[in-house]
C-alpha cells in the first residue's frame, strides 16, 4: 500500500517536472518569437525610412548646390553659353504655355470621358473597351507617347516642333490619370442626390451639371492638378517631339518653337562644366517649387472640401 502511494507520489513529481520543463521550453520559444518580431519590426521600419531618407538627402543636396544661383537674373535671362549669363526665362515660359494648353484640354476631355463612363455608359463592349484602354495607356512609357506625338502631331498634322504639338502630346499622356481620378470623384457622389434632383423634374444633364459635378469638383480638381504636376516634370516625350534646348525668345503663339523647364535642366546636366551643373540644380529648385505648390494646392482642396 505504502509502496503504491510512494509510486504515485513519484509519478506526480515526475509529471510536475515534465510540465515545468515543457513550460520553460514554451517560455523560451515565445521569447524567441517575440524577439524575432521585434527584430523584424526594426527592419521593416528601416526599409520604410530609406525612402524618406533619400528624399531628404536629395532635397538637401539640390538646395545646397543650386540655392545661391536662383536669382532675379536667373529668372529673367535666356539660355546662354556662359553660365554667368544663363537663365531659365525661355524654359519657364515654355512650361507655362504647355500647361496653359494641357490644363483645359485634359480637364474637358477627361471629365467628359469620366461622365460618360459613370453616368451614361451601359455595361457593354464599348465601355469595357474604353476601360481596358485607359488602364493599358496608364502603363505605356512616356517616351512612347513622345513617338506618337512626333509622328501624328509634328509630322502628319504638320504642327512642326511647336508648343501646341508638345501640349497635345502631354494631354494624351496624362489623360488616363485624369479620367481615373474624375471617375472616382463622380462615383463617390451619393445616389440619393441624383434621385432627388431627377424626382424634382430635372433632366439627366441638368442633374449632372447642377448636382453631380459641383459635388465631385474638388476631387476632380485634385486629380487634375496632380496629373498636371506630372506633366510639368515630363522630359522624354518633349525631347521626342523636339523641344528646343537653346531659345532666346518665349513662344508668342501656339505654333512657335518652345523649350521647357525639364528640357533646359537636362541640357545643363549634360554640360561638362561644373557651373552648369549648379545651374541645373537651380532650375530643379524652380521646378520643385512649382510642383510642391501644385501638390499643396491639391492637398488643400482635398482637405477643405472633403465630405
Amino acid at each position, binding site marked *: 500500500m505504502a509502496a503504491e502511494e510512494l509510486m504515485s507520489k513519484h509519478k506526480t513529481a515526475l509529471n510536475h517536472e515534465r510540465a515545468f520543463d515543457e513550460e520553460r521550453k514554451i517560455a523560451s520559444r515565445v521569447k524567441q518569437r517575440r524577439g524575432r518580431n521585434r527584430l*523584424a519590426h526594426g527592419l521593416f521600419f528601416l*526599409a520604410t525610412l*530609406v*525612402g524618406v531618407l533619400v528624399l531628404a538627402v536629395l532635397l538637401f543636396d539640390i538646395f545646397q548646390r543650386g540655392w545661391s544661383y536662383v536669382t532675379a537674373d536667373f529668372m529673367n535671362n535666356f539660355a546662354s553659353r556662359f553660365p554667368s549669363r544663363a537663365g531659365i526665362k525661355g524654359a519657364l515660359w515654355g512650361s507655362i504655355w504647355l500647361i496653359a494648353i494641357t490644363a483645359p484640354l485634359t480637364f474637358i476631355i477627361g471629365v467628359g470621358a469620366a461622365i460618360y463612363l459613370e453616368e451614361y455608359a451601359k455595361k457593354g463592349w464599348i465601355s469595357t473597351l474604353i476601360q481596358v*484602354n485607359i488602364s493599358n495607356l496608364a502603363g505605356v512609357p*512616356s517616351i512612347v507617347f513622345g513617338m506618337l506625338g512626333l*509622328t501624328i502631331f509634328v509630322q502628319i498634322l504638320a504642327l512642326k516642333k511647336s508648343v501646341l504639338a508638345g501640349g497635345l502630346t502631354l494631354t494624351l499622356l496624362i*489623360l488616363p490619370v485624369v479620367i481615373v481620378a474624375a471617375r472616382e470623384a463622380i462615383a463617390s457622389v451619393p445616389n440619393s442626390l441624383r434621385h432627388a434632383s431627377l424626382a424634382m423634374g430635372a433632366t439627366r444633364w441638368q442633374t449632372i451639371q447642377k448636382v453631380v459635378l459641383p459635388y465631385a469638383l474638388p476631387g476632380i480638381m485634385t486629380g487634375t492638378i496632380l496629373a498636371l504636376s506630372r506633366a510639368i516634370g515630363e522630359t522624354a516625350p518633349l*525631347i521626342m517631339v523636339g523641344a528646343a534646348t537653346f531659345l532666346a525668345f518665349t513662344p508668342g503663339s501656339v505654333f512657335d518653337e518652345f523649350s521647357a523647364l525639364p528640357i533646359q535642366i537636362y541640357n545643363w546636366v549634360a554640360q561638362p562644366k561644373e557651373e552648369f551643373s549648379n545651374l541645373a540644380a537651380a532650375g530643379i529648385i524652380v521646378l520643385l517649387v512649382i510642383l510642391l505648390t501644385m501638390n499643396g494646392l491639391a492637398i488643400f482642396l482635398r482637405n477643405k472640401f472633403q465630405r
Partner: protein
Amino acid sequence: MSQLAEKKNFFRKEKTWREKMEALIPGFLLLCGLLSVLTTVGIVFTLIKETASFFAEVPFVDFITGTKWTALFSEDQREFGILPLLIGSLQITLGAAVVAVPLGIGSAIYLSEYAPERIRRVIKPVLEVLAGIPTIVFGYFGVTFVTPLLRDFFPDMDFFNALSASIVVGIMILPMIASLSEDAMRSVPRNIREAAYGLGSTRLEVSLKVVLPAALSGIVASFVLALSRAVGETMAVTIIAGSTPSMSFSYLESIQTMTAFMVQASTGDISYHSLPYYSIYAVGATLFVITLTMNLLALYISRRYKEEY
C-alpha cells in the same frame, strides 16, 4: 389618315430645344471616351508604320539576334542588333528590382501591419512626394551624388555606370511597390488577422504567414507593374548609365538602354525618314511590346490569383 397620326402623337410632347440639345451630349461625351481608344490605335499605327520602313532595310533576324548596335555611326559602319540595348534595359530592371523589391515589401508590411496611425499619416505623404519627383531630378541626383559616393567603394568604376542607375531607378519605383502592396495587404479582411492573433501569433507571424499569402497576387502584380516602369524609365537612365551599348552585363561599366538610345538619337541631328530615324521606332516598338506584355501579365496575376473572401 392625318387624323390618325395626330391621335397617335396626342400624348407625345413636342421636344423642347433644350431636350434636343441634351440628346447630343452623350455623343460628345462618348467621343471624349473614345479618344483613349484612338490614342492606342495611334500608338500602334505609328509604331507599325515607321517600324515597317525600318524592317524594309534591316532584316528582322539581324535585328533581334545582332550583338552590335551602332545606329548613329556613319552609313557604312551601321549595325542594328538590339541585344546590347535589351541587355542594358534588363540590367537596370534587375538591379532596380534587387533594390526596390525588399525595401518596398518591407515598407508595405510596416505601413500596413506595424505603423501606428500617426506615423502612417506622416510617412504616406512623404512617399507620395518621392513618387512625384520628376525623373530628370533623379537623374541629376544620380550623377552628382550617388555615382561619386559609389566611386569611393569601387574606384575603377566608370563615371557613367549601370550600378548607380539601377540604384536610382530602384528608389524611383520603391514608392509604387510600397503603396500598391500596402493597398493589397490592407484589403485582407480584419477577421483573418484577428483569428491568427487569437491563436497567439506574433505580429511578424501574422504578417508573413497570414497577410502576405492572402495578398500575394496584389503584391506580385505590384512588382511586375513597377518593373515595367523601370524598363520604360528614360531620363534617369540616360543621364546616369551613359550611352555605350554593351553586351558585357557589367554593372561597373557604361551601358545603354533602349530608352537611352531613343533620347540620344532624337537629341542628335538626324534627319526625318533616314534609317537611324526609323531605328528609334523599331526600338520604341520593342519597348512598347515588352511593357505592354508586363502590364497585361500584372493584370492577369491580380485577377487570376486573387483570393476571394
